[in-house]
């Protein structure tokens, strides 16, 4: 037993299973627990998973040793060569994700003890939250697309349950349903992509498959020189990207994420900022060795990502709800990640995912702290507690929250020396570099770069608009709320402080080459992307990453860095100076009613996309379903099937009564007749 648990192949399983255990405990016996024991179980499960993951990271993965856990093949179909292989695979990428999920997850669980302490459904809440961690860990740790998909659906389910956690209000459960339905559209694409990949390669496992030794990694590597149907791979990747659009809220399927803010704020921090919504990014980074063969699909990803970054960023400029601002900011930042993926720079996308997880979780939890302190007086679910126009001057009341929110906003806006600066700058530089490598005037790289810079302007603006409106200036809401607002308990501020430190420090793991040749993050991740990069270098592709830096590229990096720093600092300062003054709100409202009214309303109503979808998709489907209801339900099922089957049953029982008379003589007749017919069949019909 002792040795069993020292075996990393076994130990790895504990990482997802501990949260599952915690979820089951809270789910089954939660009614008997109080908040302390319920919270202790949930936090213990995730912290335990984090400690195990950390020990495995230190002892194995950080030294370049990957772990393939013991596993089990289910549904083995010998003829088709198909098996669902339940194995875990911890390499540099999945281990990094595991650490983010369990690490940030631990902090958010601890925060939740304070945040949800007064809610009567805390056991249900913790059960869902732990279940989410389990599903997310299966998603990243699974050794096949099937386990990834199971986790993918699992996190979707938990997201649905948690968005609609306060399901007694119709708005909340509607938001849950919207998230679920929009994700189903994406999942359909994802499944098509999976089928195409299985069809072409005969396996869905990355590393280990009972029928295809070495899994996708080996089979793609062996066929990488012209034995693949590139057309089909492009289509498969496009299908997978549709799935990623749903889960990671990209155009055109981003519409669910802003509504998802109906859930408890820690949920927004964990699921809708730090982890679940990055599943699409993880999936593409995970399958980078396939994606490098799909250049057309990659360019689509880059354009969609850049468009989403800019589009969501502009909507974020005018939102009044503190969580909506952060939600659109998340959509926008995810767009940055997809931009990096589409440009072929996978490690930078993962790097932005990594820094974003900290500063965005920090911002959400800080917003939660603000809402929590106001809800105390305004009452739970009061929209005023989230309205930025009814806040102001909270710096004095919530000093810790204010501090950490400023740190988070600096990270988000990309102020130099904060983590977001390093990662966002690296993405923009990738686009810039690609633009110069492609040559020929305006090209994909430059277009994406320009959109990215514009999105960065928006980011800096709304980040400091939020800070100015919330913490500075004068209080604009109900006086009682301000009077009773007080700093959140220690269980909430402690995670905030830790996240703030991480939000500053995370960026220093990958310094710009122009400054310092220090990049442990990219060195650590390099083996994950080695196979794909080798192929790109072999083909002299412009998308290949170059490790060495020429004087020219250093110069370009400086140019890019100076542009983005000036933009970030300048726009941040501009926004802050407007909104920290008491007149900020009045000026915005004057602008809205003045000659800028039309574009302002366009942004405020989110480009009327929800209304457009309503007209284009929802109404036609409703009409179609009304027709289908009459055709299928009323006529086919009620009239034919229900009445028909009732008639069949009645006939059946009548015949049964007639046949099963209970008189042995009749039984014997039946026997003899049957035997005679059968003997005739034996003799004459073969």
């Amino acid at each position, binding site marked *: 037993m002792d040795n069993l648990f020292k075996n990393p192949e076994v130990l790895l399983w504990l990482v997802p299973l501990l949260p599952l255990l915690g979820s089951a405990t809270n789910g089954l016996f939660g009614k008997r627990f109080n908040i302390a024991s319920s919270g202790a179980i949930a936090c213990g499960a995730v912290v335990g998973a984090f400690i195990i993951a950390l020990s495995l990271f230190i002892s194995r993965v950080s030294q370049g040793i990957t772990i393939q856990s013991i596993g*089990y*093949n*289910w549904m*083995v179909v010998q003829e088709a060569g198909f098996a669902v292989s339940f194995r875990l695979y911890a390499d540099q990428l999945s281990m990094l994700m595991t650490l983010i999920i369990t690490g940030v997850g631990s902090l958010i669980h601890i925060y939740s003890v304070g945040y949800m302490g007064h809610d009567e459904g805390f056991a249900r809440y913790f059960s869902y939250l732990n279940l989410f961690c389990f599903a997310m860990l299966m998603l990243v740790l699974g050794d096949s697309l099937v386990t990834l998909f199971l986790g993918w659906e699992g996190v979707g389910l938990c997201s649905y349950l948690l968005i609609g956690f306060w399901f007694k209000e119709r708005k909340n459960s509607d938001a849950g349903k919207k998230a679920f339905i929009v994700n189903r559209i994406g999942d359909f694409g994802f499944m098509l992509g999976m089928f195409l990949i299985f069809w072409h390669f005969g396996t869905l496992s990355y590393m280990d498959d009972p029928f295809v030794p070495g899994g996708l990694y080996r089979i793609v590597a062996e066929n990488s020189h012209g034995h693949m149907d590139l057309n089909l791979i492009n289509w498969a990747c496009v299908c997978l990207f549709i799935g990623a659009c749903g889960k990671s809220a990209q155009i055109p399927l981003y519409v669910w994420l802003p509504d998802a803010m109906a859930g408890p704020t820690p949920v927004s921090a964990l699921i809708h900022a730090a982890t679940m919504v990055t599943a699409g990014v993880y999936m593409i980074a995970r399958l980078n060795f396939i994606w490098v063969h799909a250049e057309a699909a990659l360019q689509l990803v880059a354009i969609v990502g850049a468009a989403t970054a800019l589009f969501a960023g502009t909507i974020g400029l005018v939102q009044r709800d503190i969580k909506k601002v952060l939600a659109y900011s998340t959509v926008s930042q995810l767009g940055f990640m997809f931009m990096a993926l589409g440009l072929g720079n996978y490690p930078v996308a993962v790097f932005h995912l990594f820094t974003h997880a900290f500063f965005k979780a920090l911002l959400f939890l800080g917003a939660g702290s603000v809402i929590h302190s106001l809800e105390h007086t305004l009452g739970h679910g009061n929209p005023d507690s989230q309205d930025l126009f009814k806040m102001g001057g909270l710096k004095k009341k919530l000093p810790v929250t204010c501090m950490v929110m400023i740190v988070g906003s600096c990270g988000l806006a990309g102020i130099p020396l904060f983590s977001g600066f390093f990662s966002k700058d690296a993405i923009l530089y990738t686009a810039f570099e690609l633009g110069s490598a492609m040559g020929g005037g305006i090209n994909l790289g430059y277009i994406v770069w320009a959109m990215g810079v514009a999105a960065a302007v928006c980011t800096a603006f709304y980040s400091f608009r939020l800070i100015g409106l919330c913490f500075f200036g004068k209080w604009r809401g109900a006086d009682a709320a301000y009077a009773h607002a007080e700093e959140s308990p220690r269980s909430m501020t402690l995670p905030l402080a830790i996240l703030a430190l991480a939000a500053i420090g995370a960026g220093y793991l990958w310094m710009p080459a122009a400054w310092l040749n220090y990049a442990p993050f990219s060195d650590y991740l390099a083996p994950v992307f080695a196979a794909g990069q080798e192929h790109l270098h072999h083909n002299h592709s412009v998308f290949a990453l170059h490790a060495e830096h020429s004087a020219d590229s250093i110069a370009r990096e400086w140019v890019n860095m100076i542009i983005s720093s000036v933009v970030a600092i300048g726009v941040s300062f501009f926004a802050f100076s407007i909104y920290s003054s008491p007149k900020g709100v009045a000026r915005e409202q004057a602008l809205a009613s003045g000659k800028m009214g039309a574009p302002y309303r366009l942004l405020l109503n989110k480009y009327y996309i929800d209304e457009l979808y309503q007209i284009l998709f929802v109404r036609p489907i409703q009409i179609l379903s009304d027709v289908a209801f009459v055709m299928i339900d009323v006529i086919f099922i009620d009239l034919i099937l229900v009445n028909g089957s009732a008639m*069949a*049953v*009645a006939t*059946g*029982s009548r*015949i*049964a009564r007639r*046949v*099963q008379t*209970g008189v*042995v003589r*009749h*039984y*014997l007749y*039946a*026997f003899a*007749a*049957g*035997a005679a017919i*059968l*003997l005739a*069949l*034996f*003799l004459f*019909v*073969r």
Partner: protein
Amino acid sequence: MFWGYDIFLPVVWLLLAAGIILLIDLFSDEPDKVQMPLFFTAIGGALLSFVSLNPYWNAPPVQPHFNAVQVDQFSAYLMAAILVGTAISMFASLSYVRRIGVSLADFLITLLLAASGMLLLTVSNDLIMLFLSIELLSFSVYVLTGLNSRSSRSAEGAMKYFIMGGLATGFMVMGMGAIYAVTGEVGLREIGRRLFALFAQPDGSEIMAVLGMGAVLISFAFKVGAVPFHSWVPDAYEGAPTTVTGFMAVAVKAAAFGALIRLAIVAFPDNAGVQGFTGDFGWASWALWALSAMSMVLGNWFAISQRNVKRMLAYSSIAHSGYLLMGIASAGASTEAYAAILFYLLAYTLMTSGAFAMLVYASSGGKDIESVDDLRGLAWKKPAVGIGMAIFMFSLAGIPLTGGFMGKYFLFSQAIDAGGRFMWLAILGICTSIVGSFYYLRVVAVTYFREPDDRPIHGRDDWGIKFALSLTVLGTVYLGISPTWAYNAAREGVAQLQQSAVVVVEAPRKAPPALVEKP
């Protein structure tokens, strides 16, 4: 060891246990005090019998004593399934038989005798052994059916079963006589060899042979309750004590299908014969097609209108015989249909004996469960009833993650592989299973979604039934999640049996076949 008689050990342990129980019962003055010793003797006998199957796994077949029996992995698999069914029936009966006023000793002795008949049936390798073991099994089961002397329905069911069984036995003897008349042999392998030569070069007596084989097949169709030889099933199942019904449903079926497969592989050649002597019911494939189709359709259809749970399960068992017969029918044209049947029998043993044990468990504390309505709301009063019943019903209906689903999957996919009319049979099977899921799920719906009645739950449940239920629930789920091991064992068993049969090499049509015997 034991001059080769040790291959009878599995049976000997059962008979020994029966004898000891008889003696204890005879010499004890207070029957109440010896309940536990009696029970443990029976369980011990079954357990020792199970353990003594051990030498036959992964071992070559053994055929001593004029080849009257052949013990191989195929029969070991079936014997294991039968012993599991027997043991579950015993555990479930621990206090049940006393509650209905039957002596435990009588029950156990008859049950052990029936089980020993079944074990012998799976190893029988000549016609005489086959007949004797079938009769041992049948008479024991007649007695078991009528064991509840207080119930007139029990007596009625037993009487009908006995009369109909007499007719079926007549058919079997007649068929065996015809086969003997044509071939002059009683050993199955010799019969197979003679029949093969006969069908390769017909001389007119092959009509007699077909009639003989057909009569034997009809008597087996009676034993498994296939339509139109099913009429005894509802009456006997309803009348018999509930745990006996479970035993009859699973163990009789396992033994009969085992013997049928052995006959098909070893003794009955297919009519063309040139593809090689793998053995199937090619000459009867349309007849089997019809039997299977009628059993599936009528079994499922009639089950819908039943309000009595036991009668419903009786018709369901007819439908399941239909699914199994689909395997027999399509075996000639597919490769693994027999293995699929063995796996199905194992899964069927667990889920059906579990379902009947659940009826016993649900009816503790007074009145027996008779109508489906008696189960209403019981899931809230006794949560284990809800969950367990749901698992068994899901499995019987063939819903994934249960053994029943995997069994159906293997059977139907083999029939689809066989193609042609067997594919249509599989499609019919799938359609009728959908119809069947209606009455299975109705039971689940009633246990959960109907208002419970005010009948109090009293009476303690003994550990035996709890053990039986745990075993069957876990087994059903295990087979659904991880069927590989059980399926591979079945496949190896069938492959071994096929190898031990006569193999024809390069036999041209209408020419005398060259016979090669494989060890």
